[in-house]
């Protein structure tokens, strides 16, 4: 009985710890700065979305939203495609080569971005990829390929070989078998890995910070960071920007929750 009570007490306290800051942000986005400081947790006087309008009509965030979307729409599926091809090859070939190639592909997980970024920057400069969305896509793809290969190979290895063999007997080439058998069967893990990649690419800060100089090409985390400099203490405005920047991920979380949990915890097992 006492144990049950303390369980409830701990859960209640932690619920408040998580929920209150989130509520403060949501309610605060409708307040003026004075209102927020005077009354941080109460309801706003009105729910007129003035701050949201100011953020959307301001020049920064709309463009950043578009840039982030373009980058994510290209880099997530491309990473999935390249990683699933590699995962399928590695899981089917077996033996020494499979071990070697898989080892090389996932070794990238052990290399911190900070170690690579210096030479990568020089390389991107030489190739003219600095200050371009294409460069950002490329670096997103490269940096998340190892973990994507790791997740997908783990799954594809559990697919029964007999299916692929039967498909070969029926005359399918390897690519057809990959595309019409392995990929559909891997749909749940592709969804989980895709969500994982989307969250990483959407929230990535370091690479845009390194590779994007023009304000026109800013992605959302970068735009948010510059917002902070501009509107140091205008918290309601910052809160509205945070809500708008997080909206796609939050909406996806509400509808695809189980893939989020699967994806973000599969990513943990590195």
């Amino acid at each position, binding site marked *: 009985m006492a144990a049950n009570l303390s369980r409830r007490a701990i859960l209640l306290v932690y619920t408040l710890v998580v929920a209150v800051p989130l509520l403060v942000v949501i309610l605060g986005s409708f307040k003026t700065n004075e209102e927020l400081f005077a009354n941080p947790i109460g309801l706003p006087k009105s729910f007129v979305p003035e701050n949201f309008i100011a953020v959307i009509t301001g020049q920064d965030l709309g463009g950043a939203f578009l840039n982030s979307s373009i980058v994510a729409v290209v880099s997530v599926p491309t990473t999935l495609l390249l990683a699933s091809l*590699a995962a399928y090859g590695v899981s089917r070939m077996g033996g020494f080569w499979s071990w070697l190639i898989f080892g090389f592909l996932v070794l990238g997980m052990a290399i911190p971005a900070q170690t690579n970024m210096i030479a*990568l920057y020089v390389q991107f400069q030489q190739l003219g990829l600095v200050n371009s969305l294409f460069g950002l896509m490329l670096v997103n793809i490269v940096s998340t390929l190892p973990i994507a290969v790791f997740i997908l190979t783990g799954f594809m290895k559990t697919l029964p070989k007999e299916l692929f063999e039967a498909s070969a007997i029926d005359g399918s080439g390897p690519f057809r078998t990959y595309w019409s058998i392995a990929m559909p069967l891997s749909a749940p893990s592709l969804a989980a890995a895709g969500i994982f990649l989307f969250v990483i690419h959407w929230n990535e*800060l*370091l690479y845009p910070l390194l590779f994007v100089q023009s304000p026109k090409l800013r992605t959302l985390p970068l735009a948010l960071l510059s917002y902070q400099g501009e509107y140091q203490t205008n918290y309601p405005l910052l809160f509205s920007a945070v809500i708008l*920047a997080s909206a796609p991920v939050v909406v996806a979380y509400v509808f695809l929750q189980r893939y989020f*949990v699967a994806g*973000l915890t599969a990513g943990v097992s590195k």
Partner: protein
Amino acid sequence: MTETTTISAVKPPTGGIITQFRHRRRRNGRRSALRVHPALYLFPLPAVALLVAFMAVPLLESLQYAITNWDGYSATFDYVGLNNFVRAFTGDTLFLNALTNNVLYMLVVVIVQTILSLLLSLLLVKNSRGGIFLRALFFFPTILSSVSVAFIWRFMYEPNFGLLNGFLGAIGLHQFQSAFLGDDQQALYWVALVQVWAHAGQMMVVFIAGLQAIPQELYEAAELDGAGRWRRFTSITWPMLAPATTIVVAYVTIQSFKAFDLLLGIGGNPPKNSLDILSTRIYTTFVNSHFGYAAAESVIFMVLILIVTVLQRRILRLTQKQE
């Protein structure tokens, strides 16, 4: 190790269709047609090519820069041997400051986050309706960008109007009011707690998967033998949770070294000394055009993460030996 994170959504299909195919293969008996098709070796090629060009080559180049004094734009530079490394450990107070900060930050994050997420997982392991809702809520902050999380908590910690000081004042605990991020003695720890806030739910889910994989019979047998709650935890739960704990601790450690976004978001760019950790220090050195030296710092950084991860695995294995 991965079985603890297998979630129902990513289980492979099994059942009738497979046995059917197996049967058919046996009857045909055409093993030779089933050898690995040579084209399969081409499948990993695009991924391998990209990683060679943009991961392996830059890594080798970084190692090369680390022994030079290159400034990033001059056409020439000198090889300086291990001078950069010597300088980092002996003469560079900024680097040593970041290193110390990073180790402290890591210790706080790893200890608090592991214990908290383990506690939450123990409380929420049962699949009740309310439990599932709370899991979803606790997991939620993980999906936000660190910059967003940084903004949220900069307001919580705001000394004059922020929520925390307001709350402490309202319940009469004025003596605990603090400047939080403004106090250089404490700032780092307050940021560490933000990192815990953001990712404890994610680790909780890993622990729950681990807990649900423990056979219930073990607990029933222990209860029959008269083992109390604590005894059941130390003799069954903790040792059986070894794979999940290893994953969580390793991941949280790496997260705490990679906390670049959060520190930049909370501490500004570049962050002040009391909020400077290795990843931000390397970045600052780099944007100040000390490419060679930044590369050396980044090599130390990589090796340090490797050493810490290996050490932890050893320590955990000692405490979680199964009886």
